[in-house]
């Protein structure tokens, strides 16, 4: 087709040259050599512009002969009488060749510019399609079909590399989702290096940073499929596989274009991966909400039967049955355990309601003591307010702070013997309000000072059924942190000291 066209162009311009010559011959006596060369040069330029560089130079050579034969004395010979005519003749030839060459260069750069514009156009369309698709999977499918179109491959598949393995993200033409992933795809995803497959079935592997075109070029037999790792921020997120359609015979600019397309494929893959991750997070959050709702419901619904159990135990106690007290205590313990599980769940989910207000430390201590004092079981509780009588205030959630303090005192009761003293102290240190709870117990085993604040912790020395779920300290610390405070542990010569720190406030003159 192209050859026939070239032949037609050559014939056309030879005819033009012949006609021009025929027109010029009758006037050759009157015409100057310069006039003739200019007219012939026009023909040469026309041929070059229309038929390309080779035709331009060919017509130039033909014109050279025509000029010599028909217009330079002695006529109808290739002999040149006047040596100066040589100069004219060669100047003409050189001009023809240079002109054809220049024309060719211009045309070439115009063609390249056209191709670039086309690439930009395709990339823009691809980008727009990828962005406009509502679902990440649709965007990836659009990218796959564009890549197949632009490279002329028979099929294009994009695989997504996930923690669980590699799966097919999109393919053009579409294939069933359960189509097995070729082993070479796994290799590319794992190594982050390109690979190629020959029609014979052998695989040729590259290494990281190696260009797939090098593999395709160096391959001794025909390359049938190429595989490119898709990377985002230096991480392999997927694999692009192109098969058939002479995929190995792309030219440099097409390879370059493929690189750009691969980047889109990588972004599309990343989007699918992130969307899947988001869905996963949503599911986890939903599970968390359900857990919270379940705990809240259990905690609420337990209270009515527990009230009845306690009341019946109380009635039994009035009849002289000493076991009734145990029943009452255990009912309270069950109630506290469920309430704590609910607290922990809310703290973990960041869903604990918080009302930070200006509060006096007197309120905190008096309410906490009122709650805990019936449960001291033989320990003495001493609370020391600052000796100078200063009123300490802070910005915190009173309900939560009371629960933190009650938990710390309960912990002190649990790990100290009846007859010992639990001491509370309050003071201010810079911008913190500090409340310490000191017991005369054995202290926390060395090396476990931080672990005691993890949920379900039990000291290694404790019997497994010692009657605690190990939640009190974990909840105390998180409730303190939730309102901008902290709970810390220090060992003393007497036992243990837990210190609750809360943001202090300054009082204006009232």
């Amino acid at each position, binding site marked *: 087709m192209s050859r026939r066209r070239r032949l037609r162009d050559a014939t056309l311009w030879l005819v033009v040259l012949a006609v021009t010559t025929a027109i010029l011959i009758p006037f050759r006596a009157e015409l100057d050599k310069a006039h003739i060369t200019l007219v012939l040069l026009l023909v040469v330029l026309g041929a070059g512009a229309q038929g390309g560089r080779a035709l331009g130079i060919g017509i130039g050579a033909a014109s050279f002969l025509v000029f010599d034969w028909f217009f330079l004395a002695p006529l109808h010979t290739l002999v040149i009488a006047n040596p100066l005519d040589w100069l004219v003749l060669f100047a003409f030839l050189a001009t023809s060749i240079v002109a054809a060459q220049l024309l060719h260069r211009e045309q070439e750069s115009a063609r390249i510019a056209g191709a670039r514009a086309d690439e930009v156009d395709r990339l823009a369309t691809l980008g727009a399609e990828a962005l406009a698709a509502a679902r990440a999977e649709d965007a990836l499918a659009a990218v796959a079909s564009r890549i197949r179109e632009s490279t002329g491959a028979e099929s294009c598949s994009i695989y997504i590399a996930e923690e669980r393995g590699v799966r097919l993200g999109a393919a053009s033409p579409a294939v069933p989702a359960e189509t097995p992933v070729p082993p070479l795809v796994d290799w590319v995803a794992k190594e982050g290096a390109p690979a190629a497959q020959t029609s014979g079935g052998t695989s040729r592997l590259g290494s990281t940073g190696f260009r797939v075109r090098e593999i395709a070029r160096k391959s001794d037999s025909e390359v049938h499929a190429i595989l490119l790792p898709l990377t985002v921020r230096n991480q392999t997120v997927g694999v692009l596989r192109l098969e058939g359609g002479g995929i190995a015979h792309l030219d440099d600019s097409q390879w370059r274009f493929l690189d750009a397309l691969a980047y889109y494929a990588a972004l599309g893959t990343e989007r699918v991966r992130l969307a899947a991750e988001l869905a996963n997070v949503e599911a986890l959050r939903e599970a968390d909400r359900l857990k919270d709702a379940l705990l809240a419901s259990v905690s609420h619904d337990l209270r009515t039967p527990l009230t*009845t159990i306690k009341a019946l135990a109380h009635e039994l106690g009035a009849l002289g049955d000493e076991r009734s007290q145990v029943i009452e205590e255990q009912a309270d313990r069950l109630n506290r355990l469920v309430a704590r599980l609910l607290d922990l769940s809310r703290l973990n989910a960041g869903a604990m309601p918080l009302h930070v207000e200006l509060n006096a430390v007197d309120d905190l201590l008096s*309410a906490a003591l009122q709650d805990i004092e019936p449960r001291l079981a033989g320990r003495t509780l001493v609370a020391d307010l600052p000796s100078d009588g200063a*009123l300490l205030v802070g910005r915190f959630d009173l309900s939560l702070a009371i629960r933190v303090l009650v938990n710390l005192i309960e912990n002190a009761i649990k790990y100290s013997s009846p007859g010992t003293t639990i001491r509370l102290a309050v003071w201010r240190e810079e911008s913190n309000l500090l409340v310490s709870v000191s017991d005369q117990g054995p202290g926390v085993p060395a090396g476990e000072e931080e672990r005691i604040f993890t949920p379900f912790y039990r000291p290694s020395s404790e019997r497994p059924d010692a009657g605690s779920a190990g939640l009190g300290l974990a909840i105390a610390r998180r409730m303190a942190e939730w309102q901008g405070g902290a709970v810390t542990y220090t060992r003393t010569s007497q036992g243990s000291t837990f210190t609750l720190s809360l943001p202090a406030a300054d009082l204006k003159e009232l």
Partner: protein
Amino acid sequence: MPAARKTILVVDDEPQIRRVVKHALGDDGTRVLEAATAREGLDLAAAERPDLIVLDLGLPDGSGEEICRQLRSWTDVPILVLSARHSDSEKVALFDAGGDDYVTKPFSSAELKARVRALLRRAAAITAEGATKIVREDLEIDLDKRAVKLGGSPVHVTPIEWELLVALATHPGRVMTHRQLFTAVWRGRDHGDAQQYLRVYVAHLRRKLEADPVHPRFIFTIPAVGYRFGP
């Protein structure tokens, strides 16, 4: 006049809870009426004029807050609320609507009895209308002379502390929310940021009246809700 034979109305949809309350309060000649729904409770309250109502917060046919409001439109009868775990804001709404006190399930019979006794005592105190002196243990509040005495010695209180004390002491045994106290003391006057200092004023007042501020005898803290005069 029949002697102080008290009538107590229990409104709770759980028969077991009604049984528990009846058993705890029904001795020493107290008559206990039962209602299982809000509607029935309101009707019984109107017909029998009980001396105290024990009201469950989670009735199937009406919110505790709404029932309190309806009762308060015609009676000052003390209302003791039974609540399973409810949020602080729900409690505040309940007291703002007119509830007097609450016990949280699972409560003990002793706790319930103590609260009921305190509320009945308050009702009796208020019935002695025209009293100008409130006396509790060694604390004496003279409403006419605007004077406070502790163990016989005068205590100096600022005007705001006085208003607070009166608001609390004239509602003994009743939980006063922060909002109710604020309204009673400042009565809509321009107050700047006084509301956030309410707790600080109470703390100052408590320092003047209580020998041991962390073991108060008169002013009790109800976390996130307000204060109560008397245990």
